[in-house]
């Protein structure tokens, strides 16, 4: 007779990530073009914990304003050919949070079971824990400084 876990909880992960692929399937990296020249920083991202060396990592980078509303400042679809994947994303220096999932079957969507629970691996910057949904901004936020910053994420 245990524990009803309550929950409008789990589906937000999907809500956050599912829109990405439609936007970026073709583009390796999409960046907003600054109107005027500004400082850029290279985010060198390493993703570990990949179980199946196939499909693509679907990566979305958010600033604080966009984190909860899923308006990304940069997105990437990076083909997976090994159990560790590295990529570089150019960004204005600042504080960011990353939400990502591994599109193992290459259908462009985050796989979910009939109740909407994710069944493809996912991860957040700082390896912040999912909390009945995406990790919080407070837990996922990290600084990207010029000229380059390294960051590593292990998929769940």
């Amino acid at each position: 007779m245990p524990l009803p876990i309550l929950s409008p909880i789990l589906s937000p992960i999907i809500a956050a990530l599912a829109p990405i692929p439609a936007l970026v399937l073709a583009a390796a990296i999409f960046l907003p073009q600054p109107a005027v020249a500004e400082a850029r920083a290279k985010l060198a991202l390493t993703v570990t914990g990949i179980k199946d060396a196939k499909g693509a990592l679907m990566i979305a980078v958010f600033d604080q304003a966009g984190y909860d509303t899923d308006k990304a400042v940069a997105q990437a679809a990076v083909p997976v050919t090994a159990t560790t994947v590295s990529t570089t994303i150019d960004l204005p220096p600042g504080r960011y949070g990353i939400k990502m999932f591994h599109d193992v079957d290459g259908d462009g969507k985050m796989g979910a079971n009939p109740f909407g629970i994710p069944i493809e691996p996912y991860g957040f910057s700082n390896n912040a824990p999912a909390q009945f949904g995406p990790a919080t901004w407070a837990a996922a936020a990290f600084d990207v400084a010029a000229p380059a910053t390294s960051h590593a994420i292990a998929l769940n």
Partner: protein
Amino acid sequence: MTISSFLRRSLLQSGIAAGTALAIAPDVIAEPKAPAWTLGYTTPPAKGLGPSTMRLVSGKAPAGLEGALYRNGPAQFRYGDAYASHWFDGDGMVQRIAFADGKALHTGRFVGTTKRKAEQAAQKFLAPGFSTAGDPSYAVGSADDVNAANTSVAMSGGEMLALWEAGSAIRLDPVTLETRGPKIWRKDLAAMPFLAHPKREPDGRLWNLAVASLSTGGSMIGIYRIGAGGELEDFGMVDIGAPAYIHDWSMTERKLIILVQPWINTGARPGIGGFEWRPQEGLKTLIVDKDDLKKQRWAQADARAFYHTGAGWEESDGTIRLDVCFTRQPAFGVGGGAAEIRGEYKPGGEGPGAMLTQMVIPPKGDVRLIETKLDGEFPQVDPRFHGLPRRLTALVGGGAPGHPGATTLRLQDWKSGKSQAYDYGVDYMVEEHLFIPKPGGASERDSWLIGTAINLAAGKSEVSVFDAADIEEGPLATWQADYSWPLGFHGTWT
């Protein structure tokens, strides 16, 4: 017995009594006066118990009793001075008692869930629980991260499954009880909930539900149809109209019977606190054709709350009968199982207990309730007659003023309207009793009833076997372990 006996049995952990002292961390030994009933809520050693031969303490082993009783229940109640937030949060521990050549061999092992592994490593509670938010560092990406696998067991495909209600079944080696990992019935069904009350047809086919209201929310119910060999034959979805609390359900030979009690998940608060009792809506029952999930009808009854059903059957005119242990309103969610963690047992704290009732659902029109005067819970039927017309239901009830738990085995005969009882006495806490068909027997009375209990005077767990032909004669045989293990919920015989 009061509902509190079942649902508020606390996690009381200071628990120390003769026979288990060695199993408990030294800091606990400073509390020597915990009453014997707290053995029911005492955390066993992390490595488990046994294998250990149980001693025959009375009677004679029935010839032909060969097989194993498996049971599951919460068992990790504290780390140091910290208690689990609720009895229901305790990590599942599966008990196996194997019977061969008149001997009984006990083995108990914790289920190695994600939650347990993390909490054992940290030696503290991390996952969110019945009434706690959990440690913010603990990742919860699906209900399986919180899965305690502590409610029941079912054999399928050569594996023993440890069951919860909001997450996956967890696969165990049926002999060593070693944990193998979550059961994935089909790739796209990973992490789908698998209720703790699967129902088996006499030919071995297994049916079960996935209940959204307990995990992701909503009114959808998934329906598993699993072949006798353990393979998923089909999975479908039905809408029950409301995110009701569903712990158990029922079926006949051709119908699934889903009781939608008016205890609705509003989402207003996490956990059980989000469920709202709406008696004005009554008890709605959805009857679904097993061969075509789209063929459905509804029946209406007065509001009742329940946890457990026995089983149903259908008569030639389409009338459906099933037995349910009903209360007038939900019986937990008011702190039970948490307040008692610290050893506070208040008899009758939640009012009247569940009453064995037969629901009569006519082909058309409202449901009729035939209420027995039998208090009790954990109703069980002869597996040869699951879904078929039958006359017997076993349950446990009674109770003692000084401690939680049942004391009496009952056997209701629906045809004669009479019941039998065997009172273990106030020195026992009695658990669910299961039917075991006797080899070569044909009728329900050609069965043994088997069940476990904690003998409080001895401070030991016991297993007893009765003849279903006359339970008032008392056990045919009783075996006693050298130790006790915590009270559990449900079991299976295989």
